[in-house]
């Protein structure tokens, strides 16, 4: 905990460190996300089917007969692929946001604090990156880097850091004029200590709230890449490739494409509720 001049004026940093005070929206979001994560983690307990093993004698079976959601064209259990797909998409989606969060946040923190040429150049780079549509740039980068999880992380990081840099820089510009920041500076504390111990706890909340909707965007990107055949390599289950495979049977087995899409929608809803819950929480204080 910070010792000398803590962020008492606005108190967001302190409040963020208080035990989580729930509201209905936040609770609903956390509950839904918790259920999804538990389903992904305990997938082997929820289904006995192997999500990868093919059995062509059982292809395209209707729901029932031991297969809760039927089987796909290669005879794989759809429910098992849905659960194991959650493991892939939730993990990659969350991790893909971590790097942009850290890199963009750090750059935004320094740019907002220092200003000058560093800030000027960084913001011009931000203007340039946001001019290229997110999906277009991510898809182009995954193409040049070669498909696979590593390329997805690199592509989303190269494109995604700009949003965090913008948000954190904007927050720092306000926070550095607050009394606690001025006092910290006047007391001669080293810059690194001011940034990390005094400013960061106060500016990180907005970036964190944004990261919830950014995970949605990142999962959408991963699912889209999977749908286009550029995502997580086969045979690893992934909701995007499930939708792509199900599309061929849309008029006969509509649920093959519909159900993985619904899983994405529910994940998006959970994260949006969490983000909204945090916003309501900070507005009420």
């Amino acid at each position, binding site marked *: 905990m910070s010792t000398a001049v803590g962020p008492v004026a606005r108190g967001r940093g302190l409040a963020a460190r208080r035990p989580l005070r729930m509201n209905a929206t936040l609770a609903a979001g956390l509950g839904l996300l918790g259920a999804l994560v538990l389903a992904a983690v305990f997938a082997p307990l929820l289904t006995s089917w192997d999500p990868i093993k093919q059995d062509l004698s059982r292809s395209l079976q209707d729901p029932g007969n031991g297969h809760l959601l039927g089987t796909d064209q290669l005879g794989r259990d759809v429910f098992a692929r849905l659960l194991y797909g959650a493991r892939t998409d939730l993990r990659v989606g969350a991790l893909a946001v971590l790097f942009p969060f850290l890199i963009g946040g750090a750059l935004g923190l320094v740019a907002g604090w220092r200003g000058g040429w560093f800030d000027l150049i960084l913001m011009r780079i931000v203007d340039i990156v946001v001019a290229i549509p997110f999906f277009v740039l991510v898809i182009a980068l995954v193409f040049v880097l070669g498909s696979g999880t590593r390329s997805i992380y690199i592509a989303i990081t190269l494109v995604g850091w700009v949003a965090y840099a913008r948000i954190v820089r904007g927050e720092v510009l306000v926070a550095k004029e607050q009394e606690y920041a001025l006092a910290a500076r006047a007391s001669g504390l080293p810059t690194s200590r001011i940034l990390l111990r005094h400013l960061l706890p106060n500016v990180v909340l907005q970036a964190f709230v944004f990261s919830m909707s950014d995970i949605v965007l990142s999962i959408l990107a991963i699912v889209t890449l999977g749908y286009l055949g550029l995502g997580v390599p086969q045979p690893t289950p992934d909701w995007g490739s499930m939708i792509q495979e199900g599309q061929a049977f849309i008029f006969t087995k509509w649920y093959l494409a519909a159900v993985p899409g619904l899983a*994405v929608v529910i994940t998006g809803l959970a994260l949006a509720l969490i983000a909204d819950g945090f916003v309501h929480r900070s507005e009420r204080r």
Partner: protein
Amino acid sequence: MRYLAYVLRRLVATVPVLFGVSLIVFFMIHLVPGDPAKTLLGIRATPEAVAALQKSFGLDKPLWEQYLDFMGRLAHGDLGRSFFYNVDASELVLGRLPATLWLVVSGTVLALLISVPLAVLAASRRGSALDQAIRAVPLVGLGMPAFWVGIMLVLLFGLKLPLFPVSGFGDDVAGHLRSIVLPALTVALALTPILIRSLRTSMIAVLDSDYVVTARAKGLTHRRIILSHTLRNAAVSSVTVLGVNVAYLVGSTLVVERVFALPGIGTLMLDSIFNRDFAVVQAVTLVFAVMVVAINLMTDLAHAALDPRVELS
């Protein structure tokens, strides 16, 4: 005169952005691991094809010289040559651009037609059950993959309500119009959640402003206040919100074109990825970025024209 100066200043401001975009697009090939020409063309590439790609991109020259060559070609409208189709990439892009522009324009119009009335309704009946229901749209809609929405529309309109074609672009204007309905609706549904959320917030700010309070105090009906006092502001807000989200809108057309087999630059880019046709991927990325910069510029100019409070000086 002041407006003209503003237009010129905004035009000048796009130059460094376009310059930066050209740098990113140029450097894309240098992100390819290993020998770019070999990696891009794949393991079955002939040595002649690899040599031709290396020569075409000048990969043996110093980096600065490669960039100058690239910019020199761009200045002449040369976007490189497609190895797969053996034609100029610019020719391919121009041939495919109309379908994408149809999609962007019709998707935007539909998104506004859906979201503006809903946002106005939600803002004018703040706190009601209707407002709550409309506010739930973004929560559910933000996580919907655009291509999945498209597939669900294909299911609905292909099987249950065969009113519109579910693939292709038609042969004439009437055919284009009929074919664009479902792709445009898909793009609109991807954009609507974002628009509703932002527009509702800005409409609430308008409804709480002094001049609306005055209008209400003068005894004007709620309907009159909405129709004649706040809709212009709604238009201004729509333009601003559209400007902020234009990159998202343009990006979503990429995969929507694939779902509906629309012959736009999005499908061209995806086909070129699978054909390992780097020059076309590079050209389409550049064109998408230029499109975003141009639409951003247009929304800024429209905003300045609609709202006299915008600082023109």
